[in-house]
């Protein structure tokens, strides 16, 4: 690690009293009723979004409340299994055996037909350096879907149609 030098002042060290915040003792309650049709669709390898009747915003994953209108959206719409990378970042993890720092991408995608982002994983074979905003991706389903979020194994990169279009134009 590079050490950065700065004008530093040391302060007298006094005792410390321990304390804790036992977050593991907390019970978090969620009403996931509105998630159930979504989960059911996943089992059938389908993707659906929840649309607000008032402003037509389609949320994926489904939202409990539409913030813009302060109503509970209740209309399900079918979505395609493709989307594009809205934003991404790298996560760094130490390889336990080699101790090497490995980077892999974490992506937020916008599913085609939806208006919100979905934080998810990219095909681990894809290098972080190759990811860009606007990159088209497609769902890679698990072989035996169970009706939960794990059914989306990851998102796979597909051919960028915009690049193709340019070629055709030429």
């Amino acid at each position, binding site marked *: 690690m590079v050490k950065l030098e700065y004008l530093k002042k040391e302060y007298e060290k006094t005792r410390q009293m321990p304390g804790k915040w036992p977050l593991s003792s907390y019970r978090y309650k969620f009403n996931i009723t509105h998630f159930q049709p979504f989960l059911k669709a996943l089992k059938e390898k389908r993707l659906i979004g929840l649309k607000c009747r008032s402003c037509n915003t389609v949320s994926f994953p489904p*939202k*409990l409340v539409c913030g813009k209108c302060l109503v509970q959206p209740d209309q399900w719409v079918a979505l395609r299994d493709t989307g594009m990378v809205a934003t991404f970042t790298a996560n760094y993890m130490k390889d336990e055996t080699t101790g090497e720092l490995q980077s892999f991408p974490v992506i937020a995608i916008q599913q085609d037909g939806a208006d919100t982002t979905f934080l998810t994983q990219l095909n681990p074979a894809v290098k972080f350096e190759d990811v860009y905003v606007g990159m088209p991706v497609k769902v890679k389903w698990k072989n035996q879907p169970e009706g939960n979020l794990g059914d989306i194994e990851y998102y796979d990169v597909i051919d960028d149609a915009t690049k193709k279009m340019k070629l055709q134009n030429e």
Partner: protein
Amino acid sequence: MNKVGIVGYYQVPPALDHNMGRYELIFQAVRGALDNVGLKHKDVTSVVSATNDYYDGRTISNCFTVEAGGGYMKDETKVEMDGAFAVHYGMLRALTGHHKLVLVWGGSMSSCYPYSSSTLLSTDPTFERPLELINDMTAGAFQMRAYMNHFNVSAEDIAQVAVKNRRNATSNELALPESQLPAATTEMILKADVLSSPVTELMYSHPCDGAACIILAPEQQALKIRDDPVWITGVGYSQEAYYLGDRDLTQSQSMKNAAQMAYKMAGVKDPKKETDVAEVFEHFAHEEMIFSEALGFCKPGEGASLSTEIGGELPINPSGGAMSGNTPCATGMIRLIEAAKQIHGDASEHQVKDVHRVVASGQIGLCAQNNILFVLERGGRK
């Protein structure tokens, strides 16, 4: 003089362990308050919430409540105290004229984490917290003993407050069902399980899940929304010393200061005569007596002699008070809602006759270290 009116409110019925998610609970409160007066979400210009990171188990407890709490693209903020303090801040926002409609909500889920543990986490971390001896219950017990000892008040007198509040709660459809005891007697209160001697379980306002919402508007705007807004004509609040050993637990200095400030603002000279109802946030039965003394309804130590039942000379907590359901971060706000209901004549079975002026209080801290008092008046009355 500018004043601020309460134009709408809603309380989600409390429960010990609600079959509800947190966001759903908040959404119900906010949506309910808007629907009650037929206001639209787009009319709201500012949102003030009251939640607590330690009750909710998350850093920035208002981070994910923007949508459910109606804060999207609104001037939004959070007061990490009792809801009554959030109402105060909302009122300040309305008074400056920057905001025409301020929505204030508060709530939490005590089924998420034991409330008393979170009060332990609020003790002095350099000395008291590692000892794990002080929390709301033990502090309340110290105060009850100090009060009884100093004024020679009997446990029966204090239990009588619990009897009254638990009976009143019976006629309040928004009371926690477990808090309602139609046939409560002093014996029953005194014989209940001891939490921390001499406080028994039935003298304690049991924390529960719930949320509430109040909508505020400045004078002119309020009159456009409804003919009979409830006016906030006075507010006062104060914090007193922290260490129990530094304080005179037999009285509430902070409530005295709060009352002085609020009465002065509202022009109240003889609080006992000029007040029709009081809704106070009593964490324990004895606190209601200490408060009634601090509020000037009677002399110090004579709280027991006051006739405070519905129909009495000065009804206190006709709703059952905090004893009818203590939802941390909303309890004080619910007192304000109950006060507004009394003024509107909407309090159904626990309605007091002919109510013009009500005082309502909220608190936070061990032995009510910080108190806030509102004076609310019927619209149209000079």
